[in-house]
């Protein structure tokens, strides 16, 4: 119950203070630009419609998760630097509830980004009957990735000495996880590449989406690619749940004004 109270307060801070709507506006400008390019550019338009939907969905998942990670990376270290963590810790709410509430609030950015993506997927995918499939895939896979990475972001934020360090490390983790998705698909892919792909929660999740939308695989055929996103959710979420009460604390040097 107390986690709900924290989540509600965090959501108010995020969405009423203006940071959430601004992030969402930037997200929509990016997705609009990509959608317009796909619709008008002759080179990009050679893509099959399913590939256009896949590209937009992948960008939406990547940037939506990035936004959620940025919010979570600021969750504890930001409060600590702004001097508001002390008053939060004095409220009659357990530290575990604080962590869970912040996790839920950070995830609202991803859910909002997904809702914004719906019309773009619809305009690109109508006519080839993949809109519903694409949306379900994007929601399930994106939510798995977002929960795992947001939990990692909060863990980094809790143990970081400064907010800058937390944001920098979180972005570095995200870039490192996204880098393999940019490798040319025509490269020879041996067992080592496959192992790396399956270990990487972001790359394997996006691969699962592509396999369903572009290659037209059955939903159960590539389920093994969702193992690593699920494992990250369990490990990072579990670590946050277990270690949350110990790592959410004031640092001696920055106890606020």
């Amino acid at each position, binding site marked *: 119950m107390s986690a709900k109270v924290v989540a509600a307060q965090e959501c108010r801070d995020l*969405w*009423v*203070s*203006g940071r959430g*709507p*601004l992030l*969402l*506006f930037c997200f*929509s*400008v990016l*997705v*609009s630009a990509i*959608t*317009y390019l*796909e*619709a*008008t550019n002759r080179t990009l*338009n*050679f*893509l*099959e*419609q399913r*590939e*256009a939907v896949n590209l937009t969905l992948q960008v939406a998942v990547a940037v939506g998760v990035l936004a959620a990670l940025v919010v979570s990376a600021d969750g504890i270290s930001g409060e600590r630097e702004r001097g508001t963590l002390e008053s939060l810790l004095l409220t009659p709410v357990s530290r575990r509830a604080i962590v869970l509430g912040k996790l839920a609030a950070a995830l609202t950015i991803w859910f909002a980004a997904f809702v*914004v993506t719906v*019309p*773009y997927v*619809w*305009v*690109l995918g109508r*006519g080839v009957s993949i809109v519903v499939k694409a949306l379900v895939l994007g929601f399930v896979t994106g939510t798995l990735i977002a929960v795992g990475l947001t939990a990692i972001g909060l863990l980094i934020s809790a143990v970081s000495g400064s907010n800058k360090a937390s944001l920098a490390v979180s972005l570095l983790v995200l870039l490192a996880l996204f880098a393999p998705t940019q490798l040319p*698909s*025509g490269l020879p892919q041996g067992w080592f590449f496959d192992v790396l792909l399956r270990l990487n929660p972001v790359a394997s999740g996006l691969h699962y989406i592509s396999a369903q939308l572009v290659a037209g695989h059955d939903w159960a055929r590539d389920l093994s690619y969702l193992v690593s996103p699920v494992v990250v959710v369990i490990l990072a979420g579990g670590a946050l749940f277990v270690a949350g009460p110990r790592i959410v604390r004031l640092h001696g040097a920055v106890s606020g004004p």
Partner: protein
Amino acid sequence: MKTLMVLTGLLLLLAAPAAAADITFDKTRIDAVVGQRFTLETRISNPGAEPAEAVLAHLNLASLTSDVYVDPEDWSSERSQQVDELEPGETTTLTWDVQAVTVGSFSVYAVLLPSAGRGPLVVSPPVQLAVAARQTLSAGGALPIVLVVPVLLGLGAAAVRYRARRTR
């Protein structure tokens, strides 16, 4: 001595597996549109009485339109496949994933190359491939969404900011 050498040579020639003699596609013609993916199947058989040696099957593509440039790597990322030794009468099937990249008329064919690097090439009959242009998406269809969504969200963000500043 000469007779012995000729006999030995003949024996060696007979003992060595012969090249696979037959390769055919499952289709003779494909009509596609740009961006479309399709799969071709080749059937490789050994009609001879001797085992056929292992060969390398290679897919290739040639443009029949003079001003259309073709880079086969763009059309298929895996264009070489190993075919193991075939027993007499045995057949095997290979599949090739291809994506139509350019508009035009093309011939797709497969070649069997002896693994030992010598011997004749075996070439399949070509598949005639006609690729038509297609504009799947239009600016007119996407423009309303592309403009309306950011404008609405931008107005919403500005309104939230304005309200937050006034209440401070």
